[in-house]
């Protein structure tokens, strides 16, 4: 159970996320973000427990990068913090199409560029469980294609991808599992 502001946002949740793509659907405010943040360890559980193998990579619906730093500095910091000092940050940022602006401070980038920089963490921080919250927001067509490829690559590598979105319903066909959050409960349709 997850309680925020004295309101039970999620209750009676019991789910196991294995390798492959798991898509979480639900109306606005249903608790999709809270579920992902609970998996990431960012919200305390009022009751129950969670078990995650390794440290998940959580990319929220905001970029989660420090605006005073450039994408390169942000990604190098996060990779080093995770112990991935040899991560190819420059290569990852170039492959996401922001090589030319990777040394520009975050506040001078567009929302789409900041989103691309955040998603480049998929290449620099390998994790068994990847949590993506509305990853398609702010992306142009090229970046959408790049993100779909990145998700497919992660799945091919045996990673578990848990993605919350209310867009791109065609993804449901590729998903290993589909979870729907309604009235604070997680259901399998």
């Amino acid at each position, binding site marked *: 159970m997850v309680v925020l502001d004295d309101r039970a946002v999620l209750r009676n949740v019991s789910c196991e996320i294995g390798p492959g793509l798991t898509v979480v659907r639900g109306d606005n405010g249903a608790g999709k973000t809270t579920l992902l943040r609970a998996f990431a360890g960012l919200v305390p559980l009022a009751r129950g427990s969670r078990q995650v193998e390794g*440290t998940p990579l959580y990319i929220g619906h905001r970029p989660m990068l*420090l605006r*005073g730093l450039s994408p390169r500095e942000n990604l190098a910091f996060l990779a080093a913090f995770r112990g991935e000092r040899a991560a190819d940050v420059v290569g990852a940022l170039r492959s996401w199409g922001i090589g030319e602006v990777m040394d520009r*401070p975050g506040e001078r980038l567009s929302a789409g560029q900041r989103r691309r920089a955040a998603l480049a963490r998929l290449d620099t921080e390998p994790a068994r469980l990847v949590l993506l919250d509305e990853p398609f927001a702010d992306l142009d067509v090229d970046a959408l294609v790049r993100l779909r490829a990145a998700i497919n690559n992660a799945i091919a590598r045996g990673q578990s991808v848990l993605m919350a979105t209310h867009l791109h319903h065609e993804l449901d066909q590729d998903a290993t599992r589909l979870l729907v959050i309604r009235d604070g409960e997680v259901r399998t349709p």
Partner: protein
Amino acid sequence: MIDRTLLVALREVFAERRHPDGLVAALTFTGMVVLLESLALGPGRARQPDVASGIFWIAILFSATLVSQRSFDRDLEDDAIDAVLALPGGRDAIYAGKVVALGMITGLVAVAAGVMAILLLSLEIALPLHLVLLLALGIVALAPVIVLVHVLALRVRARVAVVPIIAFPMLTPQLVAATQGTAAAISGDATAALGWAGLLAAFALVYTVLGVTIVPAAIE
């Protein structure tokens, strides 16, 4: 733990170097306080060791709060802090790294304000090395409490008001020790200066340990 603390501290310093909002605000604020002190009290009273050191430490306390406030504002923008908190050891490192960075930046402000006060008020320092020791320990004793309270009030909307209301009463013993110790160093009382320095070191140790112990559970 130490590696990660240093990483966070470096990240803070880099961000502050690129956009020195906190540092500039703190330098301006302390500079103005020192200037206004001599105007408001007159040069004679403003030069008295206990008055000069008291006003100096109050200015440093407010400055450190400003710098810390700006640091947390920056981290809450775009949820940047969550990227660190979601990593193992992230909560400890955020606390300890911010304490180290705040100590460094406040140290810079204290040196600038101290030099300005010495020149503007024509202060004669009887024990300069004791003064440097007290400055260092005073800052080391302030930073853990200010960051700890900011962490506890992280998601509070009125954080700007809440932090001083909670932190300043907690910091009263440190403020007294720093003020009395600095006054003793200015007037040449080595025994008193070292006594107050020891007290500041104890405060620094207690609050650093307390912070590292409770912060992991306190941060949401």
